[in-house]
């Protein structure tokens, strides 16, 4: 594969070659996108766990190769020492690198750098500061300067700005998804479901989210009894769907539209309506009015799409995302 034509590979290299302070700009809450925008290459690169895994993986492979090489050398040393060439007069690149990076005075010549300090028998050497350490220190200082300039002079997004970007991105991608999947059930189109699969899905959702307030058998606890014909906010699929979707915050019913998808809300609303007429173990007293479906005569699968119910809850939706 020609690496030069691989955008991911290119992004990786740009990333490594450029200032590391770009690392900071990542917002992990934003879902990964495939394209690397100008200036956000590193962000995108590190957003993808596969790519991080790739880098870590290469590191581990190198480490493993190095260890294997060391082990083989050691083996050769013990099994066939005669095949090992006498060490060259010139120091290996490794030892000169180490020497340059540490500037350590060898132990044999330790006396040269021994200071005349003696504290309860503890002596001190005057070894140089390891250059790798000094350069590392300089690097972190340079990093800090670049970081402060980027965020406070060049206008790299602040935490709050990052949030706005993430929210806008999320909104766009959710809208796009809903368009694509057609998961656009809302109170104007919702219908009561009867197929076993969807009811089972509704049951699962009910059991993980609703039993705390409405009891597993719908008999009601903190929340009202769902088995009787009385409804506080109206019965029937449309009203139940709406109550689930927007909640009734003042009464403690939370809005579920950000935790459940429209289809999921439809499933659970349909499941809730299967409680009608059942006999729970500890029923809560009826609350609200007995609800009569204006379109009761019609088949349930053809729910009233134009059911005129109150819409105060809609005002809430504008406040949300």
């Amino acid at each position, binding site marked *: 594969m020609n690496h030069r034509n691989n955008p991911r590979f290119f992004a990786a290299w740009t990333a490594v070659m450029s200032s590391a302070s770009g690392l900071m700009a990542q*917002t992990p809450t934003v879902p990964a996108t495939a394209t690397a925008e100008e200036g956000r290459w590193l962000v995108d690169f590190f957003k993808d766990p596969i790519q991080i895994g790739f880098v870590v993986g290469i590191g581990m492979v190198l480490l493993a190769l190095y260890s294997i090489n060391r082990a083989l050398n050691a083996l050769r040393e013990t099994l066939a020492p005669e095949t090992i060439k006498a060490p060259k007069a010139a120091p290996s690149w490794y030892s000169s690198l180490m020497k340059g990076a540490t500037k350590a005075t060898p132990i044999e010549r330790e006396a040269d750098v021994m200071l005349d300090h003696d504290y309860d028998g503890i002596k001190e050497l005057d*070894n140089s500061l390891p250059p790798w350490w000094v350069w*590392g220190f300089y690097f972190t200082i340079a990093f*800090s300067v670049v970081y402060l300039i980027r965020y406070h002079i060049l206008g790299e997004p602040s935490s709050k700005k990052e949030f706005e970007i993430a929210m806008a991105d999320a909104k766009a991608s959710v809208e796009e*998804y809903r368009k694509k*999947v057609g998961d656009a059930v809302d109170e104007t189109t919702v219908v009561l479901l009867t197929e076993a699969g969807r009811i089972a899905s509704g049951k699962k959702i009910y059991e993980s989210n609703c039993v*705390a307030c409405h009891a597993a058998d719908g008999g009601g606890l*903190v929340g009202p009894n769902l088995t009787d014909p009385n409804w506080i906010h109206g019965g029937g699929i449309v009203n139940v769907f709406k109550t689930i979707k927007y909640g009734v915050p003042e009464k403690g019913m939370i*809005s579920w539209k950000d935790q459940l998808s429209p289809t999921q809300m439809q499933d659970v609303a349909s499941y809730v309506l299967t409680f009608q007429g059942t006999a729970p173990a500890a029923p809560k007293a009826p609350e609200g009015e007995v609800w009569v479906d204006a379109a009761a005569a019609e088949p349930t699968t053809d729910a009233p799409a134009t059911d005129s119910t109150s819409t105060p809850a809609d005002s809430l939706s504008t406040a949300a995302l």
Partner: protein
Amino acid sequence: MQMERFRYDNAIVRNFIVASILWGTVGFLVGLWVALELIFPQLNFELPFLTFGRLRALHTNAVIFAFVGNAMFGGIYYSLQRLLKARMASDLLSAIHFWGWQLIIVAAAITLPMGITSSKEYAELEWPIDIAIALVWVAFGVNMISTIIKRRERHLYVAIWFYIATFVTVAVLHIFNSLELPVSLFKSYSVYAGVQDALVQWWYGHNAVAFFLTTPILGLMYYFLPKAANRPVYSYRLSIIHFWALIFLYIWAGPHHLLYSALPDWAQSLGTVFSVMLIAPSWGGMINGLLTLRGAWDKVRESVVLKFFVVSVTAYGMSTFEGPMLSLKNINAIAHFTDWIPAHVHIGTLGWNGFLIFGMIYWLMPKIYRTSLFSDKMANAHFWIGTLGILFWALPMYVAGFTQSLMWKDFNPDGTLAYGNFLETVTQLIPMYALRALGGTLYIVGMVLLIINVVRTVRSGELLREEEAEAPALERAYAGHKGEHWHRWIERKPLQMTFWSLVVILIGGIIEIVPTILIKSNIPTIASVKPYTALELEGRDIYIREGCNACHSQMVRPFRSEVVRYDPVHQQYSMAGEYVYDHPHLWGSKRTGPDLHREGGKYPHSWHYNHMWDPTSMSPGSLMPRYTWLYSANGRDASLNTSLTEKKLKAMVQLGVPYTEEYIANWEEELNMQAKSIADELNKDPNIKVQPREEIVALIAYLQRLGTDIKKEPALALNQP
């Protein structure tokens, strides 16, 4: 030269070491207990003083101040005398220091389980104990500096620089973080509110780690490691630069605990960059320690003391690299509030602090008891079991932190949270919590081996209380050598050293804290945010008493995953102006349960009533313990104590909370009215019978208030600032 004869005080060293072992064991056991409570919440037996929220503070205080604190004092008293060739200046001050410190620990062990707490992490103790700490700390400092002044060694060794920096910095941190207005003997309010309180708290909290768990331990390393290895310290120059850089930079790093919080961005950025710059100075200590072992690695194989030191210093290097990484915003966004942070902290405490202390004890106790260690084998077993314990502690917590964070942030493509129920992300971690408890158990098994070993060692020898020594007196006049290192000058001027350390550590704190307190624009106010009612204030004090903030944060960060989860209606993150009446702040540092800053109005009163009585009734599988003592039931009287309410309101007024005189005059009426309306609402439920003046009612009032002020300001909620 005239030799002077004098004696080292070994008894005080022995006392501190024994205290460290005893309290350490207690602190570890409490730690294990709270770890088990996160698997079996019923282990609180419905007793307030055995409940996680209260015991967690006991655990942290015990291991930091009692285990590490006592060991550090023991190590300092041992090394200081020998490095200065002088006995401690005052036996009386030594005794006051020792017994005062033990009394403080006893006071902590009694008050924290009783729920007497200021709620500020690692500074939970109430104001009378704070004053006692300050006095005992001064006794320690005066004793140390007087000893330094009458020394027989011209220059101060690097270990002592660290001891001096520890003394001055902890004094400054403790005093400024503990400024609080007493309401009664056991109750006070922080003078700072909200964002400012959080900043001061984490300036303190981070530097408690830096100057209580790091600098003194580095000092101990610089004495005990070269002694045990019998090797010269690798680089004097490195000691100088890493010492000054470390103490200067450390003090700035506190805001990294508050990334993505309501703290102003400029302060957050300073926290990040100063943490990053800390890598090299921290590693300076590590490499100076490890390279001192150059040419002595064969000894490491044989000496269990050196083994402990090597793992300790390596753990120091790991956690001081990890810390700066966690200070980067993108990593912090994943790690903060999760179990990753306890994992990071425990690499430092179990590894760096614990292992250095164990090595020191194994080296020092035989010395002062004139004998040899009872069993090297047993100490080796301790080393391996302890190392395994650290791994079992930390690795599952890294996994837990990652797992939970990814679950929190996971969205379905349709925009809903993949794990909308917070509890799902908690129950997922229980196997990891169990492994962590196993790790803790192993670490304690190691500690038991240490106790047996030390007891047998002590029995085989006899304490040399007074150790004879001799050294020439210092001559009055001294001129430096020609060509000596410039730093030698300050090493022979202890008061200048103390002064300059103080100056260096004050700079960062002043630059970060003063503007945050003085400049109004750093905390934009919000008109709809009002003070708590008397009932809510009492409820808040119950929240503090029970340590709810040990598991629940009150800081919705500006992340999509957090606003959708915690504030689904308004989708508004927490803002600085919401906390202006919060004395102290209750942001928390760990989310074992969900954030509560937008809790108000989310559930009906009865949900909270049932939930606090038995969390599993509302959230099956919940790890939260039952709080049945907040209810007048089963013959228990849980009446709300309002004897201090008026004083509390007045104290708040003194701190700048705008209660009107009229309100303070009528507080009781208002309180009764609000309590009655909540109780009436609750009593509508046929299964509930509650009196308005029960503690649970006050707590519900507080919980239902949280985050509601902001919702009254629709314009603000819609316009993201």
